[in-house]
């Protein structure tokens, strides 16, 4: 197979072209046999050659008696096949098969108003060997005749083809195409371009993806649940933010599994869907729309349509702040065909819901893998939500309003206790160390006002430190009431200077009234280490902001077989704190 580019030898190229194609007397140009490909210039030159000849030769039926078949502009990259139906009953036309052997420019044919247009597409870049590019047009993947590349006229060219953008005078999806490279175990790439006269360029670059190393079939069986729709997620502990989806790698155990799972949805040849869009047709064109009014009920992932003629478009519903149409204020969609909804247009859902767009829709910056860049940690794509509990401070996400959020560094405190008997019940206490003494600091806060018996929460004087566990214990000493020991409460959350008591452990609320100013301190651990055998454990977590020196102990005071108390201490650092304690019988 020879690629006859623009600078090929003219005699050779024209001869080969006329051998490969037949030109009928009525102007029809059809494929005969052969596998060579040609710059559009050689179509023009071949036609001009046979209408210059005095005699007909070969299977071609033209000679000097026929009208001019074509014109050329822009150095032979814009070819027009002429329609002489009225005067000569001759209309020079190629068909789609012939077009598949041409590249390097555009071909326009037929009478004005009913013309066909084939526009040139040139894909530049570097891709992993074996990459099969996909071209999506009007929500359809074009049938590939290019396999892993075609007309690669230089080392930076992956593909040069013609794409039919108008048929019978009707433009196909505004002459817009999306080129995709979604090969398994490679990085992904998407490029949207509007084709025009001559040849338009798309850029695609891929490489081996070090985070995508698993077998496709294995990943497709991971059992991860797709997360679609509108979600409010508190990523950094500073309140909820809006996202699309709330992706979790569960039941798998790694972010890589999730990354690969979504890549598998979008891999070339996929029959899976994302937000209702076939993976092959996912183009990542996402628009954020403000909705002024509406009706009905949206259905997640349903098809949408709006406008007419030049303003028409279709898409899929990705997220709505509420599915109740009358209350919807924000709606995000994947653009499938046409143009995005213009101001004041009405979006209609497949289920009948409507929403009137206010202002200009905003096109979001998306990522070819949908979720974002993954290097072992996430750099989340715009507006993509993740399960906050699975993020670390190495991850970065961006909400739908463009705020970049870094999750706090949640670190674990894990105490493992080796006991003598499986039935032993070791009790663990751990608290912040006193600044001077090698003992807990028992006075880190004081009782606030208004703590009465039966209250479901407990107020302290000083705002609770940000590195206090969201679930833990506080001890309060009823000095005023003559208390001889701190009284402990299990809290399930805190905010500001208020602890909310764990409803299971303290269904009746506070046991008594507490007096302002009495001492209070936090226990990071104040419970039994548990486990089925002789290895037991207890854990908690907190948001790391700075090192915390801690001290505490493990005690097993069962009168039947008491163990020696064990002092524990350490520093909760960026990696948390892990300690192992072995209890020894004291009898």
């Amino acid at each position, binding site marked *: 197979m020879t690629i006859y580019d623009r600078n090929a030898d003219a005699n050779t190229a024209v001869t080969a072209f006329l051998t490969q194609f037949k030109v009928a007397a009525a102007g029809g140009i059809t494929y005969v046999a052969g596998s060579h490909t040609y710059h559009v210039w050689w179509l023009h030159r071949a036609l001009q050659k046979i209408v210059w000849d005095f005699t007909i030769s070969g299977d071609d039926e033209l000679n000097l008696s026929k009208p001019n078949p074509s014109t050329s502009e822009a150095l032979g990259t814009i070819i027009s096949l002429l329609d002489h139906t009225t005067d000569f009953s001759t209309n020079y036309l190629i068909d789609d098969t012939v077009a598949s052997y041409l590249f390097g420019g555009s071909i326009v044919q037929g009478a004005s108003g009913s013309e066909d247009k084939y526009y040139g597409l040139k894909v530049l870049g570097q891709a992993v060997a074996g990459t099969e590019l996909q071209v999506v047009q009007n929500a359809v993947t074009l049938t590939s005749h290019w396999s892993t590349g075609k007309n690669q006229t230089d080392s930076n060219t992956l593909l040069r083809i013609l794409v039919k953008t108008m048929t019978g005078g009707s433009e196909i999806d505004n002459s817009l195409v999306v080129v995709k490279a979604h090969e398994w175990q490679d990085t992904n790439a998407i490029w949207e371009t509007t084709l025009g006269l001559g040849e338009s360029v798309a850029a695609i670059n891929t490489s081996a993806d070090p985070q995508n190393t698993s077998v496709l079939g294995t990943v497709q069986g991971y059992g991860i649940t797709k997360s679609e729709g509108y979600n409010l997620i508190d990523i950094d502990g500073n309140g909820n933010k809006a996202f699309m989806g709330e992706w979790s790698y569960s039941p798998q155990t790694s972010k890589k599994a999730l990354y690969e799972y979504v890549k598998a949805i979008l891999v070339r040849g996929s029959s899976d869907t994302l937000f209702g869009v076939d993976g092959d047709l996912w183009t990542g064109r996402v628009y954020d729309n403000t909705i002024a009014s509406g009706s009905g009920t949206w259905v997640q992932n349903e098809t949408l349509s709006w406008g007419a003629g030049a303003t028409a478009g279709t898409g899929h519903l990705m997220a709505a702040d509420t599915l109740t149409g009358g209350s919807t204020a924000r709606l995000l969609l994947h653009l499938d065909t046409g143009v995005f909804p213009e101001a004041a247009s009405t979006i209609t859902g497949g289920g009948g819901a409507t929403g009137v767009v206010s202002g200009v829709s905003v096109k979001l910056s998306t990522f070819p893998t949908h979720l974002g860049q993954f290097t072992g940690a996430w750099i989340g794509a715009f507006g993509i939500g993740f399960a906050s509990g699975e993020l670390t401070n190495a991850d970065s996400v961006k909400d739908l309003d463009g705020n970049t959020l870094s999750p706090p560094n949640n670190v674990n405190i894990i105490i493992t206790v080796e006991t003598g008997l499986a039935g032993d019940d070791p009790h663990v206490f751990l608290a912040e160390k006193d600044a001077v003494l090698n003992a807990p600091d028992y006075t880190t806060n004081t009782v606030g006002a208004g703590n009465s018996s039966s209250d479901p929460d407990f107020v302290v004087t000083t705002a609770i430190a940000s590195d206090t566990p969201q679930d833990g214990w506080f001890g309060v000493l009823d000095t005023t009431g003559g208390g001889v020991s*701190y*009284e402990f409460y299990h809290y399930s959350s805190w905010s500001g200077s208020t602890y909310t008591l764990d409803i299971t452990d303290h269904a009746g609320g506070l046991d008594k009234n507490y007096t302002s100013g009495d001492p209070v301190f936090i*226990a990071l651990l*104040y419970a039994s280490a548990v486990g089925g055998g002789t290895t037991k454990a207890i854990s908690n977590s907190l948001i790391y902001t700075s090192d915390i020196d801690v001290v505490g*102990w493990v005690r097993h*005071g069962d009168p039947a077989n008491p163990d020696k*108390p064990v002092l524990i201490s350490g520093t909760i650092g960026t990696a948390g704190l892990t300690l192992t304690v072995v209890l020894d019988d*004291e009898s």
Partner: protein
Amino acid sequence: MSYSVNWITKVVSVPTSDLTLVSGNHYRLDLNVFRIELRRLESDFTEGLWAVQTLEHSNTRFDFAGVDYAPFDKIINGYTVEFSGSVERVDLIGSNNNIVDVLNYTGVSVVPSNSAGLQVVTSGSGVTAQDKTDIANLSRDTILGTESFP
């Protein structure tokens, strides 16, 4: 057991009812029982789990020259012990201990029965010549000021 501990003032109260009657107001306290009860209280979520340890126990017995020495129990971290109720004498058995040293005196005679044998004793007061010099200098400076006698 009905021991009570004031974990704030660090006072361990042992009621008469938890002592073993010998005769009259004469009672006995088994330190093994005492230790086990303190361990229970130290581990209790509603008692002293948060508080520093009360007692240090060594259960090592030295088979030395044919003699087995009793374990050692040492009240630590500033805890004190008191016997409450109508009791005149308490004999401590089962371990060598320092309860007499940390006893809150309530008129009870406590007999520790600790092991005693050859001991290392420092003769005299133990005050060295340097100690005497330092004391003299400090006294002089306190009375007269340091600037008068460089």
